[in-house]
């Protein structure tokens, strides 16, 4: 369970997150939507402390997130980035095994076995020995998902995973994510793919100007939005 209490984040004088309180239960699939600059990505990055919050607290499974336990907690939280961030000097296989081996101390063989299973799951077994620069954007992102899954995390954070992709590659990545959603894993997804959010989310959070303005089931948000700002945003994107 992830509990966020009165979370605030300033960049200098700029208030990006003003006051966020939210609880995310195990097994939930949460999609965070909202206009650019609304604080969606910052909110997500505060959950694994890639951004250090300036107020409030984040509690993961009862533990208050701090610089002391952040490395332990990050093992529980996989993250997938908009720009993939695969390690270009390592093969696909090595990208996936490096953290389990070096961080969790799993044996190389064991890690490779798991990695091959994960690659199969994302449909890229034959790319194990390839380097990231040889892959298409969609393939890179699927490898990035496999890399995050290799740590066997309880939670997965997705930061606009399809925004940097060519349109024809969006589908293959969303397909993998749907598979994860159906597997019962807890997912928090910042996305601009409204159709996807509508289909897989248990809950949709609409953010604007540093607040969660409205939240509810996809039907509530997409078909019966209550807040004016939600309506205005949806009328632009749908």
């Amino acid at each position: 369970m992830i509990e966020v209490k009165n979370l605030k984040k300033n960049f200098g004088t700029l208030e990006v997150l003003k006051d966020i309180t939210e609880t995310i239960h195990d097994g939930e699939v949460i999609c965070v939507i909202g206009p650019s600059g609304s604080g969606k990505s910052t909110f997500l990055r505060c959950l694994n402390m890639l951004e250090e919050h300036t107020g409030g607290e984040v509690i993961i499974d009862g533990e208050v997130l701090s610089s002391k336990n952040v490395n332990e907690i990050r093992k529980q939280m996989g993250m997938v980035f908009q720009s993939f961030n695969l390690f270009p000097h390592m093969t696909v296989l090595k990208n996936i095994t490096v953290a389990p081996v070096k961080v969790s101390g799993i044996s190389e063989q064991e890690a490779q076995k798991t990695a091959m299973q994960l690659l199969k799951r994302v449909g890229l077994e034959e790319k194990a020995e390839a380097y990231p620069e040889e892959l298409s954007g969609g393939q890179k992102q699927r490898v990035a998902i496999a890399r995050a899954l290799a740590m066997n995390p309880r939670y997965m954070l997705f930061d606009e995973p399809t925004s940097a992709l060519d349109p024809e590659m969006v589908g293959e990545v969303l397909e993998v994510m749907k598979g994860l959603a159906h597997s019962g894993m807890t997912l928090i997804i910042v996305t601009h793919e409204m159709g996807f959010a509508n289909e897989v989310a248990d809950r949709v959070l609409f953010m604007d100007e540093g607040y969660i303005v409205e939240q509810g089931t996809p039907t509530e948000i997409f078909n019966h939005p209550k807040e004016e700002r939600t309506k205005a945003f949806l009328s632009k994107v749908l």
Partner: protein
Amino acid sequence: METLKLYLDGILVALQGVPMTVGVSLVAVLIGVILGLFVALMKMSKYKVLNIPAKLYVEIIRGTPMLVQALILAYGLPQLVQSLGGSFKWPYLLIPAMIVCGLNSAAYVAEIIRSGLQAVDKGQMEAARSLGMTHGMAMKLVIIPQAFKIVLPAFGNEFVTLIKETSVLSYVGVREILRRGTLYNAATFNTFQAYIGVAIVYMMLTIPLSKLVGLLEKKMSAGSVKKKRKNAALPPEFSGTMERGEVS
């Protein structure tokens, strides 16, 4: 014929200094890379106890001529120790010579490495940290290997520069290329031939080395992809997008 022989002698004499010049340069560049990496990491640290000494070190080394540093270490230091009642003499002047070149190289290499580390996309650190790696682990496994590749050609250039710079060691009695030429001049008064010989020998070292560095640079920017091409999903022209070797 007789004049031609004088030139040839000048070159041959200078050639005798090549092992010394190359040897000192190699040791220096080795010290430089290892020490330089630590200096670079210290300089980038957020802790003042680490970054202030590193900054000071780079400032002092870059702000003073290597000749002056060599004179201080080779002759000044033993004299200071003696004046304080101790007794200290360098067993070989080659030792302070190598130290000075190494310390010097480290300061420049540190700057090269720092620019290389900063050239690595910051998403790489974030990805590594998000997988639970500590900062040190991420540096070692993810950032430094990439930075190293970026700056490898710059290391080559540093080595070429160092070969020329070691000529100042002739002032502290190291019998490298210039020292050989100087001694030859003193013995024969064939001044022009002696120093032209020295210049030619330096060029014989630096020009092929520069060409080699250029070749390396080309090879690196072509990337590691070629040998793995059989697995590739993309057309070959895609591999040309990675431009390496430029350090700002």
